[in-house]
């Protein structure tokens, strides 16, 4: 296929014979890419077995947008897009990945996902209350920012004691519907083992619950402070049973939680590493190797067992370094494939033949719109007291508390953090969402009041600038023609184009 390069986007000129529509080539890289790593081997083997051709690697423009959105939950700025597209070095994707993993937004966005799982919210059904929510969220975010080894992160939570304000991980034991040992065991299993105890026998759950039986709670004189502690004197000798069936005789005077944590963080534990690498894969690639990503069990087999085993081994060999797993996945050809399927066979996505299209998370979507328009959001707190002050420029991905929200976030499926299930986040499109982006006063105002867009309109090449700002790429020749042929009547062309681009699938979807 003969191609030419124009403004960093590869455009095909002779396409009739390929059977592809010209539009596809805005998204795909024409040269056979050398991107590949050990992740790709099991993926390609599986695809070969099913006779599915993998999609080609995506274009630089697609990559830069994708990796920003997936790693930072944030759109790249036009300057960031430009500098990446202009960079001619062969390892620029790898270097960009390394840079992004060190940015503050990486920790913010990871903390958002973790706080979904940990049910971090002030009110109902999890009543952490605002001060504790802030402390807990900060602890989670800081742990992720410093890349705390994952086994330590889990152990610090499972063995935490002290004040909900001063020893933030104790809030794990408060972020449950009730404080029954079985409820706590259920939360531990779901969060750190990806196991749903509803599928277990009651005896198995009771055996695990025995590890959490001595947790006690008491109030202090400070409003809403609560001390979580283990009653070392009151405990009784009893048997607990680990989820793998091993019986443990618990003696009074020991914190049974640490015995459980020892077991869970052992390198040969079959749940801990598998659960977290599968979740990271799901967060980045959109489909778990085991799907649902939080439903690990023998009768729900992974789509690619070798791939899962590889990631588990890598995590343990690298001392539970989560960023290593991110790096491994992000640098693979599998992650960097185009989102245009090569086949309509539904299983193609299951075996990772292409990068699946999926709507941006609610928080990422509104942050992106605000970034483009230079506007901000107001949030509502459902908690009557105390008053919470949220600075105007706070981004949605930074919100600590699921009880602090906006109608936009609710409309676009932000999870209420009731259950800790990944599926609580609902990214499926609806007519109401489309009405909102197409026609609501909220979005209309943002576009009309945007000083940023007005400045773009005065720039030398407003169309290019709008495309770079909103879609993180230059327009194709076809698009330039369509734009120059549009007669917006009495309306402003820049505002009309911004409206249209925000309403494209390309803006609303990870692709």
């Amino acid at each position: 296929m003969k191609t030419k390069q124009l403004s960093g986007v590869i455009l095909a000129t002779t396409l009739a014979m390929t059977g592809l529509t010209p539009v596809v080539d805005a998204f795909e890289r024409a040269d056979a890419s050398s991107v590949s790593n050990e992740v790709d081997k099991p993926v390609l083997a599986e695809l070969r077995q099913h006779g599915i051709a993998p999609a080609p690697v995506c274009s630089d423009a697609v990559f830069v947008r994708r990796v920003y959105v997936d790693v930072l939950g944030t759109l790249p700025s036009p300057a960031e897009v430009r500098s990446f597209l202009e960079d001619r070095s062969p390892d620029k994707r790898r270097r960009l990945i390394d840079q992004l993993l060190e940015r503050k937004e990486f920790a913010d966005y990871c903390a958002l996902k973790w706080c979904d799982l940990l049910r971090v919210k002030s009110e109902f059904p999890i009543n952490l209350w605002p001060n504790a929510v802030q402390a807990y969220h900060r602890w989670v975010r800081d742990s992720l920012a410093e890349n705390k080894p994952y086994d330590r992160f889990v152990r610090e939570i499972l063995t935490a004691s002290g004040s909900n304000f001063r020893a933030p991980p104790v809030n794990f034991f408060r972020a449950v519907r009730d404080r029954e040992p079985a409820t706590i065991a259920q939360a531990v299993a779901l969060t750190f083992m990806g196991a749903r105890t509803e599928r277990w026998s009651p005896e198995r759950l009771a055996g695990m619950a025995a590890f959490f039986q001595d947790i006690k709670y008491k109030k202090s004189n400070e409003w809403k402070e609560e001390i979580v502690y283990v009653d070392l004197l009151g405990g009784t000798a009893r048997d607990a049973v680990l989820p793998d069936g091993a019986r443990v005789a618990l003696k009074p005077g020991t914190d049974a939680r640490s015995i459980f944590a020892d077991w869970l963080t052992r390198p040969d534990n079959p749940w801990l590493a598998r659960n977290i690498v599968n979740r990271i894969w799901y967060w980045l690639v959109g489909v778990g190797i085991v799907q649902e990503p939080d439903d690990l069990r023998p009768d729900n087999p992974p789509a690619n067992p070798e791939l899962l085993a590889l990631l588990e081994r890598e995590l343990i060999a690298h001392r539970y370094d989560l960023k290593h797993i991110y790096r491994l996945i992000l640098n693979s050809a599998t992650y960097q494939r185009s989102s245009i399927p090569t086949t309509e066979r539904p299983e193609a996505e299951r075996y990772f033949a292409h990068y699946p299209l999926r709507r941006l998370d609610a928080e990422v979507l509104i942050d992106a719109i605000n970034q483009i328009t230079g506007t901000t959001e107001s949030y509502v707190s459902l908690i009557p007291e105390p008053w919470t002050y949220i600075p105007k420029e706070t981004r949605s991905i930074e919100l600590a508390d699921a009880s602090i929200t906006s109608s936009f976030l609710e409309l676009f499926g932000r999870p209420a953090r009731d259950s800790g299930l990944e599926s609580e986040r609902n990214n499926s499109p609806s007519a109401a969402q489309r009405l909102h982006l197409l026609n609501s006063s909220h979005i209309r105002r943002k576009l009309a009041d945007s000083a940023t867009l007005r400045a773009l309109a005065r720039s030398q090449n407003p169309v290019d600038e709008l495309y770079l700002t909103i879609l993180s790429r230059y327009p194709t020749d076809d698009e330039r023609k369509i734009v120059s042929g549009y007669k917006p009547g009495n309306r402003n062309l820049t505002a009309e184009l911004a409206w249209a681009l925000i309403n494209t699938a390309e803006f609303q979807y990870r692709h």
Partner: protein
Amino acid sequence: MRTNHDDCRDGCFGYHMTRRIFLGRALAGAAGLCLADSLAIRSWAATPAAKMTGQAKSVIQIWMWGGPAHLDTFDPKPEAGNDYCGPYKKPIETNVKGIRICEQLPELAKQADKYAIIRSMTHGNNAHEIATYMVQTGRPAGERLVYPCVGAVVSFFKGYQAGYRGQLPPYVVLTEPQGRASEGGFLGAKYKPFATGGDPAKTPFEVEGIVAPGITDAQQRQRREWLDQLNTLRRAAPNTPAMKALARSEDEAYDMILGGDAKLFDLSTEKDELRERYGKNTFGQSCLVARRLVEQGVPYITINYPGWDTHKNHFQTMRTKLPELDKGMATLLQDLADRGLLESTVVWWSGEFGRTPKIQWEAPYNGGRGHWGNAFSAVLAGGGFKGGRVVGSSDARGETVKERPTSPADLIASIYDRLGIGSDARLPLPDGATVPATSSTAGLLKEII
């Protein structure tokens, strides 16, 4: 296989949903759709919607935000003296012998045979938010569970699972959202209302997302065509499930922008004489829109009527507010009755509390009334409630309940009863457990049922 962007509609429901059903569902908010729906299905099994038939099909709630003065509306106390009744010393007779209401409500006086006045409402709380929660949910504040408000409960039981087929969501607020006062509680965001925004007294009535000012239908079509041309990714991968779902939701959105729902909010088709009778102000025209929504089968409509929190210069405010209330609400009752809709439509008038019976004449109030949760009034009409009645009474100065204390829970349970939502109806919690929809302390207003 299930992926996170897979369209859950068919999977969740196990049957093919028609487009119209989905449309309304979609409008009601998307958060937690799959989870909430699968739970909801479980609970319908516990409380089959088919059993829930009552005389009433719809509720129009006139929410007197801020708390209306009971003494200056439906519970006048002319004998209490100037410090209590201020300028309103001559309550007027209504068309029901023995029932008198404030002299500023002459039109409502002609409709008294259609409504019952409950003069013994009480919950004892004087804080807006807590009192609002109590009146809107019938539950004490501060319990571990945060309950959904009446509108959310009614839209849960009388919405899609009860066969509602409208494009609009089953719970609509005119015009401004009530925030915490209309929460879905543990039912989740899906049961929050659709707030129209805009102002029905203006032309056009700019309903949020559906009616955009300054953009004609022709321009909407032109824009849509342009968007289609620029939708490069969608054209590159048109057959993916994600792009198909997006295209479908966009078709549905444009059906609402360019189709019947925009017309529903276009009041220019109503006779001008009727529009005048309702009052050409936001409240009056909201009453008219509410009637049109009832005609479309929307089960719960709240008219969020602000401006009743009159700490200062209370009587100056009443001089303009009361005639507005009088015309709008009286015309609504008459119009519903004329169209044969009153029998199946509950009209509920109430605020979160009443106002201090003793007037604060001193500065800075200059004739103001504070919050009063010890005794206040509510009005119920239609849907099978008996009109021309008074339930309970307050003392000679309207300060405490004298006879038949009535809690918000009693009133709400009575509305549920009219709708066929019985005391055995249960609501689902996010974790799948269920709780009774009605407070265990609630009794029914048997006098007017």
